[in-house]
């Protein structure tokens, strides 16, 4: 789960990491009021779950409440990489001496948290990594050790942080790591991490991603979820514990297991078609879940045919058949459905479908044949 800047900073502040004072605003009036309350120079920032908002005009430094209102007017509704700005963060201005970059990433490859620190902050870290690789200090933290003072010392030395700044920076790095660990984050990124003119450090931005699987232990974070920002179908899928992704073709895909679903996307494309979306029902789905998933796949109006690709392990194919037939009984199905069942109880499942003899359903034996048929039917319908 990705957090908005202001939500990340809420976690930072709770951990004792210095951040500027700020208020969330959903309207021009709220933005003006926030600027009035903060006084002096403020920064009006778009809150979107994507990067590059600076370049897109989503951040403005202004001198007074009137200017803040003007900036809010410009930024609210702004489209940043496909994300519409619906909320702002109005933050007190600070006097910046230097801009650094610091992050803790969950490095799957090394299976360790990865610390990155550079004095070249404020810019795109991918650029630093590519164009100034020596300026980007990297260090893995062995989880069996956890973060120790020596990690900070080593990282700051590698990044070339001036010796006289290290004493002030070290506890901040340690605390940011503790946020990563305690909140079970996949990413904690501060860019820029600023050195103020008074010699102290402050987190001027916050990109925090929390592990979805750990949210049961973090009710406060779960409560931060912005339901309005999610795609309604994806939201419905999440509520039913289904993985749903919207694409832009016309063949709906329903399968069990991420790998098989991905493979199905591939064979649809190889058969000359284009997937409209896909829905992974996971392992051991019940008939009800299959019904729900079909409903979500079909709610996308672009879908001209649906491919059911199921290889049963803990998922039982007879349950899948029951779910499909149940859905046909309760709802109007407006697109033809191609079904391929294999694995656990596949024969029983196919028998149920044969018995029902529904005209909307075509049963195919192999994945490639099923893909070809689904693509053909979609083309016929368009």
């Amino acid at each position: 789960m990705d957090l908005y800047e202001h939500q990340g900073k809420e976690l930072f502040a709770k951990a004792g990491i210095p951040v500027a004072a700020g208020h969330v605003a959903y309207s021009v009036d709220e933005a003006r009021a926030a600027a009035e309350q903060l006084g002096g120079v403020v920064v009006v920032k778009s809150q979107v779950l994507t990067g590059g908002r600076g370049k897109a005009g989503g951040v403005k430094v202004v001198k007074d409440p009137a200017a803040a209102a003007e900036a809010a007017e410009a930024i609210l509704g702004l489209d940043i990489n496909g994300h519409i700005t619906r909320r702002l963060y109005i933050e007190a201005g600070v006097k910046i001496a230097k801009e650094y970059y610091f992050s803790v990433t969950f490095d799957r490859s090394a299976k360790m948290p990865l610390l990155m620190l550079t004095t070249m902050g404020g810019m795109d870290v991918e650029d630093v990594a590519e164009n100034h690789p020596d300026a980007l200090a990297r260090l893995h933290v062995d989880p069996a050790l956890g973060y120790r003072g020596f990690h900070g010392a080593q990282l700051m030395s590698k990044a070339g942080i001036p010796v006289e700044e290290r004493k002030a920076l070290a506890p901040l790095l340690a605390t940011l790591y503790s946020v990563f660990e305690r909140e079970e984050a996949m990413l904690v990124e501060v860019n820029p991490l600023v050195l103020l003119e008074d010699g102290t450090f402050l987190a001027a931005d916050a990109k925090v991603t929390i592990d979805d699987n750990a949210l049961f232990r973090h009710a406060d974070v779960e409560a931060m979820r912005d339901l309005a920002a999610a795609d309604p179908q994806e939201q419905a899928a999440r509520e039913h514990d289904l993985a749903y992704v919207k694409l832009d073709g016309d063949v709906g895909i329903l399968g069990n297991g991420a790998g098989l679903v991905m493979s199905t996307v591939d064979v649809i494309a190889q058969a000359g078609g284009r997937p409209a979306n896909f829905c992974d029902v996971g392992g051991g789905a019940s008939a009800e879940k299959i019904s729900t998933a079909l409903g979500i796949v079909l709610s996308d109006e672009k879908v001209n045919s649906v491919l059911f690709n199921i290889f049963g392990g803990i998922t039982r194919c007879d349950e899948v058949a029951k779910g499909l037939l149940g859905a046909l009984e309760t709802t109007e199905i407006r697109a033809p459905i191609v079904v391929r069942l294999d694995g656990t109880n596949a024969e029983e499942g196919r028998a149920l479908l044969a018995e029902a003899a529904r005209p909307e359903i075509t049963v195919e034996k192999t994945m490639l044949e099923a893909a070809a048929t689904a693509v053909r039917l979609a083309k016929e319908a368009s």
Partner: protein
Amino acid sequence: MAVIATKDTRLVVQGITGREGTFHALRNRDYGTNVVAGVTPGRAGQDVEGIPVFDSVADAVDKQGANTSLVIVPPRFAAEAILEAADAGVEQIICITEGIPAHDMLEVYHYIRPRGIRLLGPNCPGALSPGIANIGIIPAEVFKPGPIGLVSRSGTLTYQIGGELAAKGLGNSTIIGIGGDPVIGTSFIDALDLFQADDQTEYIVMVGEIGGNEEEKAAEVIAERITKPVVSYIAGFEAPPGKTMGHAGAIISGSAGTAAAKKEALEAKGVPVGTNPTEAAQIVADLVAKG
């Protein structure tokens, strides 16, 4: 001989009195796996259709000589279950559970690994050695014994490829589902090393998918020390960039991690890569036919 699931396996099922636990323990036993014990705290002295239940894995090890554990418990208890098994001296742990918090697994991984304990999974279908033993949830009826070691990040894709191979009359030494979570105990490389050392295995099929760089790292190891022929299939050639494909591991980051990049890395080391399961199975069949 096969690997992981062998005739020497003495299996303890953690979570045996749960619905899923009971179902798979019995299914594994029916297949011929030597299921010697189950564990559910507070249930010592009971049995599940003849399988004795203990309060702790340590008791299952002491009293029944369990050497392998199958973990089928809810995600919030799974990490501790794995650690309990490791602490009790079990040699291999197969964890089926899906949805374990990633930080829990970091801790587990770095406890298990330096101590030489094998962990398969989590969020994996387990290991099946056709005709010998099945540990986990792989539908065994799809597979038959043979010379092909099969390792896969994805459960259902494993079944798909196994089914395609079986349709061509080809069987498997062991099918290893390594799982697709951010932190898994057994990597492609570990599985390749196991197959390389296994008498029964003559060919290796590696089923990967987009995301991460495990397939690329495996390609290096194949060139370095795997002398048996390896064929690969990668899922996700048509995956849209930046979209999560369900597995947390399957996020494209830059050019590394795309199916095309993985295919290229593998082919550079002489590993043929199919672009769909049927094609991959055909490559294997051709290889076997050539001898």
